[in-house]
């Protein structure tokens, strides 16, 4: 186990460094830089040169990368070119907000999606299945920006209510925090719940047609035991894999809901950094997304062993 973890850690470091190079090059491939953004279209060439030197953009790319990664490995991600704030602080603050959204979305999707999927699978081709499949189709077909907008408009027109526009952390006011997050989590959660439900249904239907289930039923094992011991256990591993994938997807894809509901998370930070070509923030935030994805994958792998002790991590 220790060797496995050490190997995974080493591989993760290599992946992170490679990802950092890709991220570094990609953000610089976007047309226009921070100087063009700051000075606008009619900038004076001398002022542009002076500012470019000020930000180190006159250096070769590999020199810029060397300076950045050298400092980053020592925990210094620099300061934002736009705001002058420490990147580590900005990214950490934003990441905590996004993590809260991701975890609450995951919880909502699991609580709604998994039971629906089980029900749908067990009642394959019966009316509950048809009803749930319809929900799944609608959930999967509706883009998150549309669901978010509809929730916003419905809440406004039917209840005369809209979420506050200033984010409050759970520690500041849990009530405010939840009232800000309720619509975005519903928008994301309904989509995810549909995906979970569809995934679980397919696995349940597939398991119901397996020999071991048929044998168990033929041997007279009670339906409850067949369901919990044979079906649920066997779909646990693919479900955990799927949840890991979905969590990674939420972490990297909350840009739309964060923008729609004015939530200061990682997605909105990334969007603003792209707009202002704030390379230090962009690099720091993207690196956090990459590392978070790697950690989720590692967590999923470790969970396999918890779920099924026969799994050997080597």
């Amino acid at each position: 186990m220790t060797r496995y973890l050490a190997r995974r850690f080493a591989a993760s470091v290599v992946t992170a460094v490679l990802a950092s190079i890709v991220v570094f090059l990609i953000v610089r491939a976007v047309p226009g830089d921070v100087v063009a953004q700051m000075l606008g279209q009619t900038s004076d060439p001398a002022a542009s040169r002076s500012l470019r030197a000020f930000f180190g953009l006159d250096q070769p790319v590999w020199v810029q990368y060397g300076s950045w990664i050298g400092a980053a490995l020592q925990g210094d991600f620099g300061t934002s070119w736009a705001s002058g704030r420490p990147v580590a602080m900005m990214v950490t603050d934003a990441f905590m907000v996004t993590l809260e959204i991701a975890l609450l979305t995951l919880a909502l999707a699991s609580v709604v999606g998994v039971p629906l999927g089980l029900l749908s699978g067990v009642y394959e081709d019966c009316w509950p299945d048809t009803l749930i499949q319809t929900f799944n189709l609608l959930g999967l077909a509706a883009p998150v920006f549309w669901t978010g907008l509809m929730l916003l408009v419905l809440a406004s027109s039917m209840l005369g209510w809209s979420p506050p526009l200033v984010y409050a952390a759970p520690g500041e006011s849990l009530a405010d925090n939840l009232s800000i997050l309720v619509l975005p989590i519903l928008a994301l959660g309904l989509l995810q719940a549909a995906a979970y439900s569809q995934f679980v249904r397919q696995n349940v239907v597939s398991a119901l047609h397996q020999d071991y289930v048929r044998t168990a039923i033929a041997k007279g094992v009670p339906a409850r035991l067949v369901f919990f011991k044979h079906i649920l256990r066997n779909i646990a591993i693919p479900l955990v894999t799927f949840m890991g994938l979905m969590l990674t997807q939420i972490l990297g894809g909350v840009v739309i809901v964060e923008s729609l509901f004015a939530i200061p998370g990682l997605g909105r930070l990334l969007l603003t950094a792209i707009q202002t070509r704030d390379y230090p923030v962009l690099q720091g935030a993207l690196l956090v997304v990459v590392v978070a994805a790697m950690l989720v994958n590692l967590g999923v792998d470790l969970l396999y062993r918890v779920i099924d002790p026969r799994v050997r991590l080597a």
Partner: protein
Amino acid sequence: MNATRRWVLTAAGLAALTGLPARPAAAQELYGPKAAGASKGGTLTFGSLVEPPALDPYHQGADARIRFTVLIYQGLFYEAASGEAMPLLAQGYTVSPDGLVYTVTLRSGVKFHTGQAMTAKDVAYSYNYLRDPKNGSPGAGDLTLVTAIDAVDDTTVRFTLSKPNAALPMTLGNKYGGVVPAGYFDAPDAKQALNQKSVGTGPFKLAEFKPNSHLALVRNEHYWEQDAPYLDRINILFVPNSASLIVALRNKRVDLALLTRPQDIQQVEKAPGLALERWPSLNQKALDLGSELAPLGDVRVRQAVALSLDREEIMRAAVGGYGKVLGTMVPAMQERWGAPLDSLPNQKPDIEKAKALLAAAGHGNGLSLTLTTINGYDWMDPAAVTMKQQLARAGIDLAIRRIDLGVWIKNFQSKQMGLTFNDWATQPDPHLLFYRHFHKTPEGADFRNWANAEASALLDRGLSETDAAKRKEDYVQFQKVLAETVPTVMLFSADHVSVRSEAVQNYQQHPTGWFYGLARAYLKK
């Protein structure tokens, strides 16, 4: 309320209801007119679709920053809506006969947000810091003609120039910099500290700035103007999309906001409890004709393009009528600096004349041109389609290509833009509006490769002329050359459209788009 102001409000009400032209520019008063019976106190919530990346007025050049920091920091002069520099922290100034020395007398009784009194040393330090290229301010380029800034005594500052610059007072305004205590930037964390604590002299001081969330300003208790500002606090909420902003306006979570897209404006136009007002702007949506592109190098082709365009139709398609068709001057400055519209050639559509010009230029069988538009500028797509139809009547086949802003800026700066839409704004001074864009190189940038010696000479005269009437005449002549030889067609100017709850009173939108009006707004109790 005086008679003029009452007329303005009545006109605005009618304009909102009937689609009449926008109300005239704000009156010639600092930050707009004071209100005699204004109630004091209260918190106004402002919804903003744009967000300042930082609040440092020296090193952050984004317009989104300027909009808000004009309430916190003050320069020596105020950019009056009509195009004049009014004394702000200055009391007045004199100019030497050769136009090379400006002696500025400072207003007395001004204190920084820290409570410290402002002196000439602070002013000299601030502007010297701003103009030093080593300090990395995007505002340094505006002060390259300044060779020295000295504090003569506690209340007098002297600016020495290398050559006359009649636009100097306007460049000592509020776009970049602002007066801060002498030596402020000596502290290593000074730039970042401006996001936590303000050190200006403006009517509001910084209470809190949380990027991607909100900015809170509170009344400056040391402020030098009598009985102003009226509000105790302004909470500025950054709302990244207009759908959420409209919902927030309707649900009274936001008291005041500026909207830009016609489809958004239409959604709140008749909403109960909300008042919609239109204001002239210094923005212009233009069609640039770069002479480096072969057929556009021929002035007859450029004139033919201008004569094929119906600007009113383009404006209606592009911004739903929430704008004003232009001649050669943005609406807010038309009265003070604009050439009379009926004196300008090539302003009205004349298809027969356009065809004749094309034939004379050797394009009698038609001509193909490609128009560049920029991704993310909503008005450009409908404008381009409308223009394609209009140009077809004169035998010009227009292809349309869209590019990203970064690519467009690169092309523009390298003067390889050909035929393109442009969207730009200015400070209200004709030198700042025209010189860099249209003066021949190397003094100007001449982005459109116009290389017009007559126009450049007029721009030089306008820069050095300190007599206001003569200066205007120079710029009127320049505009006639501009209209005659068509390096650009100023199509229209989009209005600023403010939406406010009925509780918000006395708010006037400055044509720059900066939120000076919040220094005069109050909440009805």
